[in-house]
């Protein structure tokens, strides 16, 4: 019996196809990506059957966390954040912001400090700012700074849509106070951010 000789095959594989796939995926991700913003506030939103998607720009967001602290954020379309800070310093002449503070304000996520502490907050280093536990914007009726933020935010970007992003376990009175503030500023139409939940009416159809 002659021995069967198994021919030795090269272990090299053609990587071209794999390379193509990798770069195809890379292109896809690069084009679809939207970078996560630096958000240090953790909010677990309730779920609803509503399927309206949130637009990406022109958003004025009010975040309420579990402890009932209120935060404010505005997206920076057409430099609306710069304008907002200018308006704040016009309203509070004692607060004049430096260029570094302005840059920090543009890059930071949500703001949740009383206006008189804003300058100090923006002076912190990036890392320190992330670690800093913000006290929340005052919303009580005697000192309702959220109203000022909403008003100035809307003046900075008139097309803004207002969203409320509240934690599902936060107490209702806080949310009510925020909604009252919105109504005081003549904002009667706003969106609540929720998670998606299956619609029982649609489930029946399956």
């Amino acid at each position, binding site marked *: 019996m002659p021995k069967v000789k198994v021919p030795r095959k090269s272990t090299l594989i053609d*990587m071209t196809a794999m390379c193509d796939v990798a770069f195809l995926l890379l292109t896809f991700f690069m084009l*679809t990506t939207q970078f996560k913003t630096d958000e240090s506030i953790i909010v677990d939103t309730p779920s609803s059957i*509503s399927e309206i998607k949130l637009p990406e720009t022109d958003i004025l967001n009010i975040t309420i966390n579990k402890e009932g602290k209120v935060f404010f954020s505005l997206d920076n379309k057409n430099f609306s954040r710069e304008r907002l800070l200018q308006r704040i310093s016009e309203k509070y002449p004692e607060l004049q912001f430096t260029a570094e503070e302005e840059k920090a304000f543009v890059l930071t996520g949500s703001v949740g400090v009383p206006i008189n502490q804003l300058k100090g907050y923006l002076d912190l280093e990036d890392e320190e700012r992330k670690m800093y536990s913000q006290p929340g914007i005052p919303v009580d009726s005697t000192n309702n700074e959220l109203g000022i933020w909403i008003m100035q935010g809307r003046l900075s970007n008139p097309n803004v849509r207002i969203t409320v*992003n509240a934690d599902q376990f936060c107490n209702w009175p806080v949310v009510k106070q925020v909604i009252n503030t919105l109504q005081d500023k003549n904002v009667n139409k706003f*969106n*609540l*951010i929720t998670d998606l939940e299956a*619609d029982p009416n649609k489930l029946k159809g399956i």
Partner: protein
Amino acid sequence: MAELEQKQVGKKGKKKGRKKMSTRIDLTPMVDLGFLLVTFFMLTTTFSKPQTMEINMPVKPKGEVKEEEQNALKASKAFNILIGGDNKVFWYRGLPNEPIEPVTATNYTADGLRKILLERNASIPEMVVLIKPTNDANYKNVVDVLDEMNISNIKRYALVDILPQEIDLIKNL
């Protein structure tokens, strides 16, 4: 360097077949790089845009509202939902002093509030739902009730403040 010398030899006229270099390149490092970047973008991307629920609040009236304007809603069409603490929810029909159907406790499941809402909405023409959260209620409960309105397809509902006598009504339940 070896290549250079070879070229010179070729120029000298000796028609020696140039050594054919393979055009194949090892693409493994490129694939590595590609997947590294893919991983990076996959981890930093935010895919799902959040869903939103739109609500419209009535325009806040300026100044005092007259008594007769306030009670414009017919008692027979009013369906009140009272949201308490600890995930409790109650409902009654009519006015707090003279309810058509008394205060009843229910829950957030499909057989609880949703069933009642669907039944009453079918039997009462132009029913208006008044959602009244107490101060003990949490945000999730309110959103759940608003969501029930969407599920049961009730178009007329309002988020209003709870009355003191209604708090008394549910206190002992």
